């Protein structure tokens, strides 16, 4: 089975969270997943564009999906919000033919190839846990996690609403848990694992956002987590980079290393620290890794 995808990293992975992109690209290469660039793709618009310009947001999504379709591939992303936004639009295009026809009318007038609603939108995490041969993954592990307690933080936009995610039920998401176990770790169960990182109210409700970050991180830590991983560049930004500001708001020290799932997977697969952007993490994971002889 050939694993080739039109690759849509999302804005955050091209800029502030670029370590997620370099890690994802490195692990994909090792696992035989080909990620092909999409030179025409724009920002997906997130829910923000859906709020301000609902019809334009569908047109933007259709143009992105159409580019992948023209390449002959499903789309693969590493950002939960892109995943949800594109799956939401794709779900509507597949279930509301009249909307697809109207939006395609806009695309045609602007000289864009119409979208035929034939492709699917995946997360790289899903590809790794559901499409890569588990034996291949096992054969590539050079630094297993030696039982390290890892907190999976799923992020809202890869789980809900369940109906848009093509046969994935919101309550049953366990891909991060699967991945953690596959690379030799122990997936920590904790209350905050499917809660919100607060990213989307980072600027409007600052204290509330920081409290969310603080509570979820502390909850994971109290449940024994040595490291936290997420499949989303926006959750990474919130739970990682904003952990410091969160500590100030909740008045407690957290000190929980947080990284993208692709970074931890990259460690297990022996990718070098520079490619994984280890120096860009706000809480240094080195002591936690050393404790487990990784």
């Amino acid at each position, binding site marked *: 089975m050939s694993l080739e995808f039109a690759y849509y990293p999302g804005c955050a992975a091209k800029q502030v969270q670029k370590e997620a992109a370099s890690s994802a690209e490195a692990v994909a290469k090792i696992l035989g997943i080909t990620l092909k660039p999409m030179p025409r793709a724009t920002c997906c618009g997130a829910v923000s564009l859906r709020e301000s310009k609902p019809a334009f947001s569908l047109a933007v999504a259709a143009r992105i999906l159409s580019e992948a379709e023209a390449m002959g591939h499903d789309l693969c992303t590493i950002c939960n919000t892109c995943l949800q936004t594109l799956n939401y639009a794709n779900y509507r295009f597949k279930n509301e033919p009249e909307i697809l026809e109207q939006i395609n009318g806009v695309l045609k007038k602007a000289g864009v190839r119409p979208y035929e609603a034939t492709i699917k939108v995946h997360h790289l995490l899903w590809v790794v846990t559901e499409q890569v041969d588990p034996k291949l993954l096992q054969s590539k592990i050079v630094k297993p996690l030696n039982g390290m307690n890892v907190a999976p933080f799923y992020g809202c936009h890869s789980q809900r609403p369940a109906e848009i995610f093509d046969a994935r039920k919101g*309550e049953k998401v366990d891909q991060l848990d699967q991945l953690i176990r596959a690379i030799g770790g122990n997936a920590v169960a904790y209350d905050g694992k499917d*809660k919100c990182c607060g990213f989307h109210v980072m600027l*409007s409700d600052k204290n509330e956002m920081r409290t969310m970050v603080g509570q979820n991180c502390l909850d994971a830590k109290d449940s024994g987590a040595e490291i936290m991983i997420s499949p989303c560049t926006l959750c990474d930004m919130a739970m990682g980079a904003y952990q410091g500001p969160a500590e100030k708001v909740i008045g407690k020290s957290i000190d929980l290393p947080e990284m993208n799932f692709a970074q931890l997977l990259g460690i297990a697969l022996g990718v070098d620290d520079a490619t994984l952007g280890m120096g*860009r993490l706000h809480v240094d994971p080195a002591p936690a890794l050393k404790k487990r002889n990784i």
Partner: protein
Amino acid sequence: MESRKYTLRIQRNQKQDDGSVASEWQEFTVEGGETTTILTLLESVKGDQDGSLTFRQSCRSAICGSCAMRIGDRTRLACKTHIGAVVDEDGVVSISPQRNQPVLKDLVIDIDPFFKKIKEIKPYLLEGEEADTKVGASAYEQVNNVTQCIMCGSCYSDCTMSEVSENYLGPAALAKAFRFVSDPREGKKTARLYNLSKDDGMWSCVRCVQCVATCPKDVKPMEAIVKLRTRGIDKGFIDGVGQRHALAFHEDITKSGDLNEFTLLSRSVGIMGSVAELGVAMHLLKKGKIPSPFPHKAEGIQEVRAMYQDLEANPLDVETKAAEVEPE
């Protein structure tokens, strides 16, 4: 129906003299089939094992909303939830009171904060100059989901913003507000949108979609909140961080294709807001996390501009419409 043993792990709560609540988990072994409801099993515990177990219940038909409580990983109606659907591999399920409101005893909470917020949005039609006397056949398409709300408080209990904010209106009140904003007979639609655009209103929703997943009546509160925001922007109520942030997206997408994260901050919170954020900016800078002011430019960006201009000139209504709901 085959009967087997299940374990209900119930949080017992008891108010102390000093006002605090003492909590402990207690396990009860019960017998039932896969489709026996949690409510039936709670009644059997109360009737046969411990008469002091306290919970609310009334209609047994998912209409009154009394028996909402945390069952397993979210808030559910005990009368609508089958034991077989929520137990783990050992046949155990945890049951605790709703979150985000004060606990009174065992599984009973004080629901006043929830209803205070419902009242805050004035849950009735207001007279005024915007009232239409004609109600078309399509008027119901927008409010079909939100009129199903039974005020059980499940969404409020699982709302991730309500967990950290006492003042946030919450999903049910906002869904109810949308029901009136969308009613042709409502006389003060614009005034409602103005009020909802203030702090702790519709722009404080974090869009985690938990309320949509939790709601036992398919009200889809967050979908209503997204539509409220669109209507608020269309009325020109854009003087807020959330609104300005939302409006920044189409500017960037039509300009270069990708978000300009460098200028997004100042456009969302203004210059003074950016100064206030300086501490965080310095914190991010330490790890090289300040975005480039010159984002990547997508090929064919003129197509995107053409689509935008076309839709500005010829608006398209793409709002989701709800179909008739089948009775359960």
